């Protein structure tokens, strides 16, 4: 059976050009970038070139890019890195962050840090008034994601940066720092750090048609933080360990390609996304969209289908050849419903019944038409089974 992959927010297939760019670094140019002979220098050159590419895409200096093993590590480095340096203080984040941000914040809370989890409105946009009121003299870090992974909500990063800047000016303080997790945004939105006004930004390759296991943290010059793992001098000591050269080369290529086609691809996907949203709302009785109708990532559709638990929908769709995901964490071994959907003010029941479709480069209108054909039938069947 032909498979239709609609879970691009989970991960993406690797682009052929990315794969080709990585190819020499598995066994031809395999050197350790920390060594001083030719093989090492070749590896280091490849890494330096990749760092420059990524830096120039986001408008940073190459020394502001720290390579990591992915998005989760980048988020952890940003949060623990700042917290470990200050040893105490106040952190602001939102209720709808990825667990790579939420869990570190919760750990720090247990360790004695104060954490404010900002509310979001019914569309998933952070409450900026609450942000203003939450800023304190001892606030060391604000971490707010650029675009949400479950509902695609895009946060007003520039406005948030301005609020923080104004506060710092008024308080004549160097703190708080502003971190954003831009991992889901990287395929579609502008990543220019000067425009965004962030001090720290997490990026990752595996959601933008690059390899898994590589990402980076942008750290603005002058911003100090401590490493979370120790062992060597690589990445200015902030991320020790032999560099993943093939991954880094692939990451740079993937980011370059994604950003080059971001505008065009966004336009294409927005049409498909809205077609899918309209189709589901029309063909599946009582279905509802989660998140804002337009102020969302071009590839994200998240719907609640009352009476049908998300996992059941996902597995029936899987049997029909469609790969998608649930906002509900049922399949991810925790039985708690999605913290993102409940943060929108929806009931736990609604959160249990959410399904996410995330489109991507290979998604065609034909794929969406097939989904719109089988999904209503599946829901009809599962509603017969349902006890509510």
């Amino acid at each position, binding site marked *: 059976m032909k498979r239709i992959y609609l879970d691009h927010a989970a991960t993406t297939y690797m682009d052929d050009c990315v794969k080709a760019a990585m190819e020499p670094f598995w066994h031809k140019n395999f050197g350790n970038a920390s060594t001083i002979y030719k093989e090492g220098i070749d590896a280091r050159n490849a890494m330096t070139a990749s760092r420059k590419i990524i830096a120039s895409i986001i408008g940073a200096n190459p020394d502001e890019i720290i390579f990591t093993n992915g998005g989760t590590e980048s988020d952890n480095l940003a949060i623990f890195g700042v917290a470990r340096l200050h040893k105490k203080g106040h952190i602001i984040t939102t209720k709808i962050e990825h667990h790579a941000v939420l869990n570190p914040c919760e750990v720090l809370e247990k360790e004695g840090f104060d954490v404010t989890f900002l509310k979001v409105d019914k569309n998933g946009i952070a409450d900026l008034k609450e942000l203003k009121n939450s800023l304190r003299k001892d606030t060391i870090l604000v971490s707010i994601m650029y675009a949400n992974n479950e509902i695609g909500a895009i946060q007003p990063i520039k406005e948030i940066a301005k609020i923080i800047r104004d506060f710092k000016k008024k308080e004549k303080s160097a703190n708080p720092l502003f971190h954003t997790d831009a991992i889901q945004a990287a395929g579609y939105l502008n990543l220019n750090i000067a425009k965004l006004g962030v001090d720290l930004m997490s990026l990752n390759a595996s959601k933008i048609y690059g390899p898994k296991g590589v990402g980076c943290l942008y750290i603005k010059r002058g911003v100090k933080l401590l490493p979370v793992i120790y062992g060597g001098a690589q990445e200015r000591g902030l991320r020790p360990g032999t560099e993943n050269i093939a991954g880094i080369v692939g990451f740079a290529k993937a980011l370059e390609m994604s950003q080059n086609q971001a505008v065009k691809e966004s336009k294409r996907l927005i049409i498909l996304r809205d077609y899918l949203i309209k189709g589901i709302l029309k063909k599946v009785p009582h279905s509802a969209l989660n998140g804002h109708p337009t102020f969302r990532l071009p590839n994200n559709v998240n719907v609640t289908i009352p009476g049908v638990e998300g996992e059941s929908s996902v597995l029936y769709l899987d049997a029909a050849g469609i790969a998608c995901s649930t906002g*509900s964490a049922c399949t991810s*071994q*925790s039985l708690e*419903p999605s913290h993102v959907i409940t943060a929108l003010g929806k009931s*736990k029941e609604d959160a249990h019944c959410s399904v996410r479709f995330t489109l991507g480069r290979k998604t065609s209108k034909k794929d969406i038409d097939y989904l719109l054909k089988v999904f209503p039938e599946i829901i009809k069947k599962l509603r*017969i*089974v349902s*006890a509510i």
Partner: protein
Amino acid sequence: MKQQREWIYTKTVKEHFFHPRNLLLDDPEPGEFDAEGIVGSPACGDVMKMWLKVDRKTRRIKNLKWRSFGCATAIASTSMFSQMVAEKGGMKLEDALKLTPRDIMECLGGLPPYKIHCSVLADQAFHNTVENYFQKFPEEAPHK
């Protein structure tokens, strides 16, 4: 060594999830069943309803129908339970009451630890239904 899986849960779970047995399709007619029961809550992501018909003479379960809101393992657990107690002539009520969540789980070929509660819920739904049956027909209740 465990074999490589082709599906997230066992083959039996898959079979029951896609082809549920004894599902109540139409709302019951008055008198069609002797009792009904319900457990779970939509907020927790699981609701199971059962309908029971008992042969008064033999005390065997004539019919056990169900509906289930929940994940694949919740649906499969209820379906499996209904098959265990209501098929092949039906189990005696007191024997069915002796079944445990572990029995359901074993018949399903096992559940991951975080899904064990699905088999517990199926068991609880049945106990809730039988309780309702004994309330309606106190003469059928075991002497205490």
